[in-house]
Every structure is written in structure tokens, then in C-alpha cells.
């Protein structure tokens, strides 16, 4: 995964984290009796989803690179 890909995926993961926090505060927090419990659960959920998103983006980028390298290798072998 290149730096720019990691930056892009990281930024999107951050946006996802913040979005989950906003949605949680607006819609889900009312279902909890304790505010501090809600905040802890919210952070756990938001971090888990953001990290999962980043890892998925990383896996995709690695697979894409492997595919491109295989393509180049095949082309080189064809020429030889």
C-alpha cells in the first residue's frame, strides 16, 4: 500500500469514525441509561468499523498491486 493510498483510506476511515459518532449521539445514545457507557460503546464501535474499513482498503490495494505486477510479469515473459 503506497503512502497516498494509506492517506486516502485513513482520511475516509476518520470521516467514517466521526460520522458514526454523530449518528450515535443523535439516534442511539437515548437508548442507553448511562451516558458514559454509551460513549465507551460508541468509541469501541466507531474504532472497530473505521479500522475494518482501513484494513479492507489496504487488502484491496495490495491485491490490486499484485494483479498489476502479475500483468507486467506476464507481459515481460511474453516479450522474452
Amino acid at each position, binding site marked *: 500500500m503506497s503512502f497516498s493510498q494509506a492517506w486516502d483510506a485513513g482520511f*475516509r476511515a476518520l*470521516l467514517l469514525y*466521526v*460520522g458514526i*459518532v454523530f449518528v450515535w449521539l*443523535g439516534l442511539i445514545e437515548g437508548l442507553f441509561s448511562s451516558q458514559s457507557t454509551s460513549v465507551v460503546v460508541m468509541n469501541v464501535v466507531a474504532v472497530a468499523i473505521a479500522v475494518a474499513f482501513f484494513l479492507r482498503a489496504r487488502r484491496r490495494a495490495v491485491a490490486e498491486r499484485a494483479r498489476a505486477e502479475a500483468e507486467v510479469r506476464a507481459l515481460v515473459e511474453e516479450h522474452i
Partner: protein
Amino acid sequence: MSQSLSVSLPQQRRASGAVISDRWFSILLIAPAMAVILVFALLPLVYALNVSFRFADLTRGGIGDFVGLDNYRRVLADRAFWASVGVTVKFTLAAVILEMVLGIAIAFLIHSATKGKGIIRSLMVLPLATSAAVTGLFWRYLYDTQFGLINYFLGLLHLPQPNWLGDYTIALWSVVLFDVWQWTPFVALIALAGLQALPKEPFEAAELDGASTFRVLRTLTFPMLKPVLFLVLVLRTIDSVRLYDAVAVLTRGGPGTVTESMTFYLYRTGLKLFRMDYASTMAIFFLYAMLVASLFALTPLLKQFSNRASEG
């Protein structure tokens, strides 16, 4: 001579025994821009983020204690905030749709005109060249119920003379009309530039094949204009969401709060009521909404450009 021109700058610097590496040279080149972004964008953002987590009622002193997510909870439960979001969405939809439709229609009209294209283009730049604060004042006089030109002409035609900025049912549409007047030429000029840049060959071939005007528009003109129109749509949407100056000059958010946009509500909360904590929180929400919207809007555009580059 031509050989020396083809040598890249880093190679030239190496040849002349430069003391800094390419990496540091490139860092040096972007450093001024980064410094400006840091000072004028990132530091205020970090400060606003800090204030949004604190109690900051300036009428009771400066920036106060840490209050966690309380400001965010309050903003999300605030009806006035959601009303201002509704006004902004309503304004953006109405203004952008009207500007796009009228702008494209005007571009087609000018494109097919045989005389006076240059003069029309110059005249169309005028609303864009003047600040909204100035043209807004001008429009306030046009809208005036007693001395306004619009009501004067309506009176001559024996038509009803509404209170354009004071009637809560039409005040927002008066602001939309002003924005449409100011920004339709922008859409028209960009669409016109796109039309003039289209290659002639496909259109000549379509004409030889006897394709109807509607078919040419549907299968050639609009698909080829799509990237330009999409770009102008994104630019106009982002600008419309930031609506402030037109509201500030024409209605000050009134009558009541029917024309209070998100940015105007933010300004009123922060600089009239001095609730900086609340205003900063809304600013963070606003920034987040803009970032997400830009991400969704720009992704297909960037994909389109990269596809074109790889095809080229």
C-alpha cells in the same frame, strides 16, 4: 540549446553541484503553500475543535471547562439548527437546479448566435465581477415594497405587489431569485466554453446520417459535455451550501428565521449571542457535511479524469 532545455531542473542542479537533495528541494517548493494552509486553515480548525469540546459563553468570560460531547448533543437536538439545515437544503436544490437549467439553455442560445457573442459574454461577466454584498443592496432596492422597481412594474400591469423580503412565504424564493441572477451567467459561460471546445467531426457525421436535433443532443452533446457540467454542478452546490452574503444583505435571516441558512445561524450564534462553543460545534458539523459531500461528488469526477488519462 535544445539539449540544455531538455535537461530537467534537478539534473541541472546536480551538475552545478547543488547542496540540497531533490527531496529537500521539493519540500522547499511546497513549504510556503503548506505554511499558509497550516496558519489559515489547520490551526483555526484545531482551535475550533478544541472550543467545541468546552464551555465558551463569551458573555461569561473566555473559553471555559472541558464539557466532552455536550455541545454536540445540544446541536443535534436543536430544532433551530435543523431548521437552518432545511433552509440551506431547500435553497441549494432550488438555486442549483434553476441555475443549471437556465445556464445550459443560455449557453446553447449564445452558441448558436451569429452576431454579438462577444458583447453578450462581456455583459454576462458583470454580475460575477461584483460582490454579492453590493449587488444584494441593489436588489434590496429592487425588492422594496414602496420604491422598488419590480413592484412599480407589477403595479403598471395591475398585478399584485408582494412584499418580497417581508412575506415569509416568498422571502426564501426572493433570495433564490437573487442567487440565480448572480450565478446563472457562471454556469452559462462554463457550459458555453465546453460547447465551443467540442470536436466538430461527430456532429458533421450525425448531420450526414440525418440524426434529429434531439438525438444529437441526447447521444452526442450532453454525454460529451457531462464532465464540464458535472464540475460546474459540484462547484455551484458547494457554493450554495455556504450561502451567507445574500441572506446577510437581503433578509438578515428573516422574516422570523425562514431564510436563516446554516452559515447565518452559525454567525448569529457565535458573533451575536457570543456562544462560541455552540458556533464551533456547528462549524465542525458543517465542515463534516461538506467533506462527505465533496468526497461523494468528486470521486466519480476524478475517476472519469483518470479513465480519460489512461485511455489517452
